[in-house]
């Protein structure tokens, strides 16, 4: 599917197959075309090229009401002049096959389910953000649609409520078993809620896959940098004869990486912050360091309680700009200004082509060993 607005291409050649009852999250930075994609599925925009099918039926020329979808908007779009009851009921009015009593009963049932039955006769502006959010969900659920479309529904809530609604949304989705397309720019929401994530950037689909697959085996530098918080470290440099050289580092590649990288010379090294180990500087200074170890200076430490984000720079880096950041357990305390030894296990290293951004090598991961079900 392609969508253009005049000369601007909002979404280019996007192809997605979403199985029944999947929770798919479309994620990407602002203006990447994720909302446009959602609006095309909803029928609020029509694609310039390509086709949309829902349940095997061609949808391009169908008006939204005939697509059997429901949408939750970022600003909830609750009608201010109607009570909660009327708001939820509104979506049901055009549905055939209900008597008036059945409609009322259905509204009560949904309100009960969402825990908003006590506020059915209030106006939306008397409700808190979380309650309004629930009403908006109720309005979508009440029609029992084939597909749920959600456009950043949690972005107007405060952090605590957002976490709570995230769980609730997941439970609801499980309960109704409805295919859901969820748009967000928040990668935490994407990681925690989805069955699969589709990452978009500049109108192009970057990668689709399960959250952990995207995390551990990103197909390109954009996905690698977008998924994960704090984000992956990137060091630009050149690769020659199996050794990676950047402004301050030399990093020898082992045979596995060397085979994947081949003879590409301009590469970017990527390391997740949690894969960087910090050690106390040994007595002999930086002389006795192993192959994958470097001496670096701690510039800033951000304690999070459960973990610390340690910003590191090279001692000879005059600009004092941050080079990489590492995660340490909350109980490991490092002082700013001290020199430490940084070691990076070759097993955890990603290598990207500097020109195309494509991943040449991803970290080795035996799913049985490192990712295991509890």
């Amino acid at each position, binding site marked *: 599917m392609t969508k253009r607005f005049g000369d601007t291409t909002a979404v280019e050649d996007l192809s997605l197959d979403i199985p029944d009852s999947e929770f798919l999250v479309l994620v990407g930075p602002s203006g990447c075309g994720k909302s446009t994609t959602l609006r095309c599925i909803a029928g609020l925009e029509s694609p310039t090229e390509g086709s949309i099918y829902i349940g095997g039926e061609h949808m391009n020329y169908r008006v939204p009401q005939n697509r059997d979808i429901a949408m939750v908007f970022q600003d909830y779009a609750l009608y201010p002049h109607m009570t909660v009851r009327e708001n939820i009921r509104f979506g049901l009015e055009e549905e055939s096959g209900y008597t008036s009593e059945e409609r009322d009963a259905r509204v009560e049932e949904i309100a009960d389910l969402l825990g908003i039955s006590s506020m059915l006769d209030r106006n939306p502006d008397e409700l808190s953000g979380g309650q309004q959010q629930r009403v908006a969900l109720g*309005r979508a659920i009440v029609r029992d649609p084939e597909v749920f479309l959600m456009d950043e529904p949690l972005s107007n809530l405060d952090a605590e409520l957002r976490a709570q609604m995230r769980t609730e949304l997941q439970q609801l989705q499980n309960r109704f078993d409805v295919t859901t397309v969820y748009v967000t720019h928040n990668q935490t929401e994407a990681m925690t809620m989805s069955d699969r994530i589709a990452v978009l950037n500049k109108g192009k689909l970057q990668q689709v896959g399960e959250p952990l697959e995207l995390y551990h085996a990103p197909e390109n530098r954009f996905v690698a940098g977008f998924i994960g918080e704090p984000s992956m470290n990137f060091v630009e440099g050149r690769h020659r004869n199996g050794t990676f050289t950047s402004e301050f580092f030399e990093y020898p590649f082992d045979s596995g990486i060397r085979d994947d990288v081949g003879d590409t010379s301009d590469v970017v090294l990527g390391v997740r912050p949690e894969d960087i180990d910090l050690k106390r500087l040994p007595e002999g200074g930086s002389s006795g360091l192993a192959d994958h170890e470097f001496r670096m200076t701690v510039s800033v430490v951000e304690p999070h309680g459960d973990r610390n984000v340690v910003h590191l720079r090279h001692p000879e880096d005059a600009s004092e700009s941050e080079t990489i950041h590492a995660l340490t357990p909350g109980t490991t305390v490092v002082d700013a200004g001290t020199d430490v030894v940084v070691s990076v296990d070759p097993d955890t290293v990603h290598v990207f082509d500097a020109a195309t951004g494509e991943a040449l090598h991803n970290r080795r991961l035996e799913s049985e060993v490192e990712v295991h079900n509890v």
Partner: protein
Amino acid sequence: MASSSSDQTFDVASLVEDYSLYRISQYVLVVLFIGFFLAPLETGLMTAFKTNRAVAETIPLMPPLAEGFTLDNMTFALDALSGAFFNSLFMAIPATIGSVLFGSMAAYGLTMVDWRGQLGVLVLFLVGIFLPYQAVLVPLARFWNNIFPLASMVEPIFVALPILQSYHANLVPLIITHIAYGIPICTILFRSYYQGLPTSYVEAAKIDGASITKIYRRIILPISKPMFGVVFIYQFTQIYNEFLFAFTLITGSDTPEAVVTLILPAVGASTSGVDFGIRMSAAFLAALPTLIIYVAFAEQFAKGLKTDA
């Protein structure tokens, strides 16, 4: 104890400081302006209740005293204007409702519904605002008199109706003219309001399966209630006070269907001179409906202005 100590340290000089020269002159200016604007009103109202002798002998601003007070002017003016009042309201109320309603519908269609050629139509509406009334007077009169004599067409219906007389049919072309000329400005006023509404209202309703007319009726119309207040007051005042169209389409002040603005200049004026008491009474009575409308819609008006800003 705290209060006694504060009494002791009470600073008289600070009082003087508070009433700085700047603020005093500000208030003096405000009071002067209030007087300047209210004096004519006061004069008019006082004159309306004075006998001719009192008008001639007392200061215009003074209230009428004892034998100088009379209600004769009021009753005379009411008598002279009563027919015109009915005509004016019979004309202005439907014309206002019509133009406001159509204006809101047009604004909805031009703002919240997408279709080809929208901009061209909007430009036509804008042109409609800037069209000078003087330029259309002659064509308008010819149209309603010769080409499409609507008044004589609907006359039989008016004869059959209670209260109304056959001559009231002459007001129908005026009503339609006012509706037509009121639509552009109402459309623009509503358009700016609708542009401020979140588009998700319409989109959510669309997904819920509501038709374009249902979205208007159930969602947009109720939401724009405050704006209706604003536009209604504005439009009613415009139409009620309008003179040029009324003068052109209704033959003159001596006809039974004449509206207030046509009658008013003649009330209290005769060959023997101007009767100020009667004139002022008539002017006061003529202004009453617009005042009542303002008071009745004041709350909506304030709300509408607030949401607009």
